[in-house]
């Protein structure tokens, strides 16, 4: 086992524990702070990582550039490589879009149009459309490239306000004009925003990485010498070592000193006079610049020849565009012709059908029916049928509306309100709804519990009432009949019995009718006789009081209702007999002679009688008689 260990805590004796910890921690912290400052800038790892990223960025960029160059070569536009490269670089700088996106977009446009000028215009347009729509430049360029060859469906997603037919029928030049009109200025507006400015910075940083990467790759190439890239591995190692040596040396210089203040002073002194550092660096930079491998683009054929080739390429591209436009036109014409033929065929079919209707039996019958004498409504119905038969939808609809309007009053009776625009289906639905509601209502009504006869108890109540009134009447009549010796009430003394002669009105006259007391009220009178207060008898089922006439029941009265009506009439008639004037206010004169009943009893009887009369609704006038 190795003896690599870190003892966090040891035990033995206290050797200034706190001082040791403090010193160690303090020194550690000082070293860490120093390490952070130096390490971040001079750490080998950081430099290596940046270097690697730069080399990667450069190599990817180079690959993309080679692909574009190859495409140009294949299209016979190798001489335009510089122009294209410069254009992309300028566009990258001004738009904030990396050349990683611009190169593939340019490539797709070049391969479609075959013209650098056209591709440049379209790429600029693609950039504007990309900013407006939020889609990446490569996608927009693809859509434009497809639209160039007639596949315009991809342009629909940019919402340019053209229908599918218009996209298909318009030429690419027209579409380009529309797109340019709609999307110009979008990129400029975007660059004004914060995101746009950050994008431009990102482009600058990416370019810086690529440049440095290029420098690193060149450096390794130089270092590898004659052994070429195969020796680059060793060269990179040595390079890394050198860098590591330098950084380590600086760190060691500072860290190994016992007096940090002294060494910081030295370092700051050095930094205060940057010429000390910059002079050698400047020399080195000059050396690097001189060592940069020279790069000559293309075949170096001269400007004149290039111009000629450019013109030829543009002519070729224009010819191809013309061919495409012609092809589009021919396609559109063919489509229009097909459409026309189809319409014509449909018209012919319609005409044949119409001609056939002459021999259509149903139609013949309908026409014949129309010629007969029919009501207006039926005429409309028949005509509607005929229209349906002949597939004349418009006429059928209008006629149906007219039929419905004719039936409006009848429908309103059913609770259906016709509105303008309601068709037969709407009316049928309304009828169904109304009928359903009606059915539910009827069912509900049928299922209602049977109402009680409100007049059920009238008989007994009225009988009792009449009984009481008769009792009072008899009692009052009894006051007079008992004479001087008798009490007004006619009742047995003190007993409080209601006084009343109870004599049957009919009895004294010698009537031989049967007295039936329907209320069952029996009133005891002196002598033990039972008085029938009603004086009623029954004739043909109608109960009559002798002193009132038979009341004719109303049509539709039930027997109970007829009896009640009669009873009420009887009561009024009975009350009417109380005084000489019939329904005149009753004058009750009480002549008290003697002491037949007690005072209180008499008062009670009179009071009860008066209440009962009041209840019957008759007015009472009180007169005091001085005795």
């Amino acid at each position: 086992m190795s003896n690599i260990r870190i003892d966090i805590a040891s035990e033995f004796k206290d050797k200034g524990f706190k001082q040791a910890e403090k010193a160690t921690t303090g020194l550690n912290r000082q070293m860490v702070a120093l390490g952070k400052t130096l390490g971040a800038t001079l750490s080998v790892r950081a430099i290596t990582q940046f270097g690697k990223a730069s080399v990667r960025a450069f190599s990817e960029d180079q690959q993309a550039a080679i692909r574009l160059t190859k495409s140009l070569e294949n299209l016979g536009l190798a001489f335009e490589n510089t122009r294209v490269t410069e254009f992309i670089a300028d566009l990258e700088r001004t738009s904030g879009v990396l050349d990683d996106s611009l190169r593939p977009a340019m490539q797709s446009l070049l391969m479609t149009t075959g013209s650098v000028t056209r591709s440049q215009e379209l790429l600029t347009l693609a950039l504007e459309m990309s900013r407006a729509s939020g889609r990446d430049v490569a996608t927009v360029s693809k859509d434009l490239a497809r639209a160039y060859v007639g596949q315009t469906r991809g342009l629909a997603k940019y919402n340019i306000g053209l229908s599918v037919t218009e996209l298909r029928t318009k030429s690419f030049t027209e579409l380009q004009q529309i797109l340019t009109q709609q999307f110009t200025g979008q990129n400029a507006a975007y660059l004004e925003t914060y995101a746009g400015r950050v994008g431009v910075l990102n482009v600058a940083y990416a370019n810086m990485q690529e440049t440095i990467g290029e420098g690193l790759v060149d450096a390794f190439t130089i270092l590898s010498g004659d052994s070429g890239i195969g020796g680059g591995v060793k060269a990179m190692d040595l390079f890394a070592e050198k860098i590591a040596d330098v950084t380590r040396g600086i760190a060691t210089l500072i860290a190994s000193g016992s007096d940090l203040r002294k060494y910081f002073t030295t370092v700051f002194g050095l930094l205060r006079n940057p010429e000390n550092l910059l002079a050698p660096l400047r020399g080195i930079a000059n050396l690097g610049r001189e060592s940069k491998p020279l790069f000559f683009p293309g075949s170096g054929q001269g400007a004149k020849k290039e111009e000629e080739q450019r013109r030829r390429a543009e002519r070729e591209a224009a010819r191809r565009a013309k061919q495409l436009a012609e092809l589009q036109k021919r396609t559109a014409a063919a489509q229009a012709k097909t459409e026309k033929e189809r319409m014509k065929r449909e018209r012919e079919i319609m005409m044949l059908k119409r001609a056939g209707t002459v021999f259509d039996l149903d139609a013949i019958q309908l026409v014949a029916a129309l010629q007969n004498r029919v009501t207006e409504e039926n005429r409309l119905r028949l005509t509607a049928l005929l229209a349906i038969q002949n597939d004349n939808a418009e006429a059928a609809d209008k006629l149906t509306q007219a039929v419905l309007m004719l039936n409006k009053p009848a429908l309103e009776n059913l609770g259906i309100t016709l509105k303008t625009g309601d068709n037969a289906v709407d009316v049928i639905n309304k009828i169904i709804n109304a009928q359903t509601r009606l059915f539910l209502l009827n069912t509900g009504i049928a299922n209602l519990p049977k109402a009680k006869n409100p007049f059920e108890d009238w008989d007994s109540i009225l009988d009792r009432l009449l009984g009481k009134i008769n009792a009072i009447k008899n009692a009052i009549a009894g006051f007079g009949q008992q004479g001087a010796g008798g009490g007004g009430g006619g009742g047995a003394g003190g007993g409080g019995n209601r006084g009343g002669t109870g004599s049957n009105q009919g009895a004294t006259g010698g009537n031989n009718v049967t007295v039936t007391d329907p209320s069952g009220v029996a009133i005891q009178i002196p002598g033990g006789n039972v008085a029938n207060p009603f004086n009623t008898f029954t004739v043909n089922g109608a109960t009559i009081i002798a002193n009132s006439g038979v009341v004719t029941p109303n049509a539709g009265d039930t027997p109970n209702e007829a009896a009640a009506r009669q009873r009420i009439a009887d009561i009024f008639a009975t009350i009417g007999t109380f005084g000489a004037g019939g329904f005149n206010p009753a004058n009750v004169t009480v002549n008290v002679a003697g002491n037949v009943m007690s005072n209180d009893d008499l008062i009670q009887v009179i009071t009860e009688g008066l209440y009962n009369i009041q209840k019957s609704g008759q007015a009472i006038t009180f007169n005091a008689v001085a005795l």
Partner: protein
Amino acid sequence: MPVVVQGVPELKKALRNFAPDLLKEMNTEIKVALKEVTDAAKAKVPGQAPGRLYNWNDDGTEAVSRTSRERGFPKYNARVIRRGLTYSLGRSRRNRQGFSSLYSLLNKSAVGAIVETSGRLNAYGRPQAGNHHSKNTKEYGASNNPEAGRMFVGSMNGIGALKQYDKFARGKGRLLYAAYAENNGKALDATFRAIDKASKALKQRSTVRKAA
């Protein structure tokens, strides 16, 4: 130089007897702090031998010493190295000076120690005297390749620079020592905070019991 403390073994004994839960809690907290350092050290270990030392990778064959020593030069095995980076909560044997470690971080494996300490003495590798010498010494190596030492130390430096966690030269390393140095004393603080907390808790408990 480790931090020297007094009474921690006694505290641990008391905790074990009277408050095992506090002991467990204290150990857990210390483990967490120490694990942070060992994990950081393990993260520095690359999967393959660094630099261009391809043949140093462990291919499963046993390392045989070419100089008749007991053990051959150990092969590079990242798993072995990581397994060897560990911590210990147990008390170590007393050394000659009378110190015994209570809590320690360890880099146990031989190859781990090689990776940890390469270049500590000779930052640019030992000068090589060639194999006409019978054996190598501390001052000179026996390789025919004059750049052997430089290449080896340079490759090791690919893992990380040597960092020092205390003021002594022996506290310099690129795995465990570097991780501890980067830890900035947090593990140390956490360890003593845990001990302190356990001590206070035990005192509090024993005070309550006394009152009852």
